[in-house]
């Protein structure tokens, strides 16, 4: 899985390209942890190119969400694919990490 980030006006956009499985989950934690450490705790995770997510990937999302909030920011997700949406819904985590349709919408009301 590949991660890239780009700074926007009030947040950082992280794109995750590939399968968010037990291999990629710790990589995501490290990537987002570094962003937070570098002063960008407001993050939108763009999942348009995330073809797959399992419970390890979901655990990483929750860990990143907690880390962002502890740093005074937030982590939001956008552009989820059907498989990712299914995992979020089956675990009821869509109530904690509500997916936004687009990256731009994620922080539009803040």
């Amino acid at each position, binding site marked *: 899985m590949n991660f890239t980030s780009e700074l926007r006006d009030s947040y950082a956009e992280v794109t995750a390209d590939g399968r968010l499985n037990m291999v990629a989950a710790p990589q995501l934690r490290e990537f987002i942890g570094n962003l937070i450490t570098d002063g960008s705790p407001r993050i939108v995770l763009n999942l348009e190119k995330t073809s797959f997510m399992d*419970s*390890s990937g979901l655990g990483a999302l929750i860990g990143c969400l907690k880390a962002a909030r502890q740093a005074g920011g937030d982590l939001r997700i956008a552009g989820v694919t059907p*498989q990712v949406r*299914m995992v979020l819904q089956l675990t009821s985590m869509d*109530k*904690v990490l509500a997916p936004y349709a687009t990256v731009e919408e994620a922080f539009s009301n803040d």
Partner: protein
Amino acid sequence: MTEVIASRSFRGTAAEDAIESVHNDLESLWLEVPFVQDIDQMTFTTAVIESASNVVQHAEPAGQAEVELGVDIVVCRTLLQARVSAFHAKPPFGPMEPGTPGKDAESGRGLALIQALVTTVNFERQDSTNTWVLSRTPPH
């Protein structure tokens, strides 16, 4: 079981790269069986990867030999079945039934997810091999 239309088998060291291999096997398998609906491909793939990941993450060797992961998948007209095995492994420890992790928990959702995705999950142990048999019966 009815006639097997397509199948894949993987066996190798229970390590991270095994998960990518199994996932690649599944993607190539679906190309052979276009009658399997997208929703069934998606749910079954998720269950198999979740189960194989459990082996890689949690299986402990029973002796000197390293734990090996085996994944045998068959597609029949009315059944998707995977046998996910941990060879040379101790019996699984910890809960065999899904727990109810809190919303802040970063683990503990895998078993519940597997059970939600397939029709049946059965566990077998023979010699030093633990096998989870996942079956999904697609709706007609």
